């Protein structure tokens, strides 16, 4: 393998990895506070995409504005889903909640398909997805750079949000021990609703960055969500830096494995996940959850 090719694969890995990392972050953020895996994450992101598409491509709203509107809508929908359905569902065990989110995902996907149609739509983006910058005789796609940089900015933003803001602190408290947090006067419901909203924003941002390069349709998020789950698990379900590490790792490994054994690319990526878990059952940076018998 030539150096040039190795670098190209790395770039592909980082671009794809940023998307995985963002989705993984949303998965971990939610898991830390609510102990739930959300199958509906993909549909929340789709909602943001369809709204952004409709506002900009159909109604001529500036892209940045409809981008924000899309993120906001998905955050509100996620908060509402938690507040009105998840919180009140009688099946409060992890398995019951998992299937509840599955039901939501099927319902929302059906609804979005009816509302917006199932065809491939051209999602507007901030840069032309094909244009490249030339560095010597090496070209790098503007979109790849945008995705990687925007991903980084979001991750840094999340870091400050969780570490420095009041609500972030409350989230960490709730994730450590919801009962004690409640006893100490932390409004647990507000914290949970906002963690659902922030998770939805991260997932939607991933989708909004991804969609212009391919095309927008109701199955856009199937694959990224799958990989985002896997990345979260590799990094450790309780660790935000772990999610980022897992995302990039999965993206880069996939690129190199896919280059040599294309037919088994997906399976091998997952086998690596399993291998990591055999040696580190709680992911690379995750901690064992203490359990009282």
């Amino acid at each position, binding site marked *: 393998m030539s150096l040039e090719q190795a670098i190209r694969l790395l770039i592909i890995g980082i671009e794809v990895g940023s998307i995985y990392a963002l989705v993984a972050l949303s998965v971990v953020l939610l898991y830390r506070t609510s102990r739930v895996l959300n199958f509906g994450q993909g549909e929340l992101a789709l909602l943001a995409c369809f709204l952004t598409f409709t506002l900009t491509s159909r109604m001529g709203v500036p892209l940045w504005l409809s981008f924000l509107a899309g993120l906001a809508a998905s955050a509100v929908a996620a908060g509402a889903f938690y507040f009105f359905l998840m919180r009140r569902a009688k099946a409060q065990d992890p398995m019951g909640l998992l299937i509840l989110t599955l039901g939501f995902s099927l319902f929302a996907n059906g609804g979005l398909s009816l509302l917006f149609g*199932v*065809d491939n739509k051209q999602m507007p983006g901030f840069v032309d997805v094909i244009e*490249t910058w030339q560095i010597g005789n090496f070209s790098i796609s503007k979109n790849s750079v945008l995705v990687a940089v925007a991903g980084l900015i979001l991750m840094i933003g999340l870091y400050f949000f969780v570490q420095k803001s009041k609500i972030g602190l409350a989230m960490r408290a709730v994730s450590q021990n919801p009962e004690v947090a409640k006893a100490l006067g932390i409004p647990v419901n507000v914290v949970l609703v906002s963690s659902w909203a922030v998770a939805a924003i991260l997932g939607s941002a991933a989708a909004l960055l991804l969609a212009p390069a391919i095309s927008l349709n109701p199955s856009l998020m199937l694959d990224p969500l799958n990989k985002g789950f896997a990345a979260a698990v590799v990094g450790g379900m309780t660790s935000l830096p772990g999610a980022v590490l897992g995302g990039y790792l999965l993206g880069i490994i996939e690129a190199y494995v896919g280059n040599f054994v294309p037919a088994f690319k997906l399976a091998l990526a997952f086998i690596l996940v399993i291998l990591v878990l055999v040696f580190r059952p709680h992911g690379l940076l995750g901690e064992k959850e203490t359990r009282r018998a």
Partner: protein
Amino acid sequence: MRKRVVVGITAGLFAIAAGLSGMAQDIGVTKTKIKIGTWGPTSGPFQQFGRVMIGIEALVNKVNREGGINGRQIELIKRDDGYDPARTKLVVKELVERQGVFALVGGVGTANGVAILEDVRLNQIPWVSPATGSTAFSQVRDGKLRTPTVFASYTNYVIESILLLRHGVNTLKLSKIGIAYVNNAFGAEGLAGVKSEIAELKGKADLVAQVSHEQSESNLALQALKLKESGAEAVVLYTAGDAMISLLREMAKINYKPQILASSVVAGAILQAGPSTQANGAIVAAYIPLPTAVLADGKNGDPRADAAFAELIKLAPDAVRADPLSTIAGWAFAEPLIEGLKRAGPNLNRPNFVKAMESINNWKGSLFNSLSYSPTDRQGNNSVFLVRGVYAPRPGFTAVGGWVSFNNER
């Protein structure tokens, strides 16, 4: 008392008479109605494929509006199978055994169709135009038709890929060939066609790269890189639509410009990939003539395709504008069914209908180039029509020569 017996007997005779007259007709056929069933996914990740049903419905509506067939209206019953073969069998069983349809038309997916094939064979259910280009539906075993009630009209993918490749090698004089395909039965048949034709061409062309993607995969950056490395001058595409858009864009990013030879299945996506990708100039196989709506210069479309398009747009404007080709395909799939029903005459039953279908020979009345069935052949159509995807003056296609038919001479 006596009066009652007489009434009883008369009633009984009427019942028998009604039964007898019913026998000349068949399941799903009454004096005023013919029940026809079709299916495809309208939920789940593959629901785009289900749009074929719009075309079928549009033609049925038109026929009904014009008075039906021999005084009978067609009742089209549509079902969603989510593109899952187990569910396909569920819905087709329901159509046949509970709804009592006379015949099936369309029906999306290869594995999905194969799942009901044994039932169709055992119960001799007429099935016109499975909406998939697989060879499984017109098989001959020990000199006999395996499923004599099935009439395939879709140019099968093996033939389609062979004709695409021939154009690339013989006309465009390209010799290094690559193929990108999706990991399913559709992709596998495209690959099989390309491989067999490469062997037939004996050194005139080489298969230098074959890359594949999973159905769930939507980013094909790696595959683009592999194809570029192989130095393929032409790339045959049997991928999924959205994956193909990604592949073409990734090719553009790395400044790789092969000639694209694409299956009819991804024709719609060719017009969405963008003017600076190789979709601009791609050769695409079509099996029906194109309406004005998808022609680049916006004029001189095929009049019959235009008529179909006008009907379709009334029924489902958004879906048809988004994907005119696969919806019109549905129309074409239903045409031989209508013709068969007409030819079968007023005394409609399944054996008559099968005979009527067999009498379709070199028939040019449909959107297909020409349809021919016979007692020994059920693959009615072997032609494609090559077009080029362009982006000026507007995204659309231009014709490249006329119909090309498959025969084994070169």
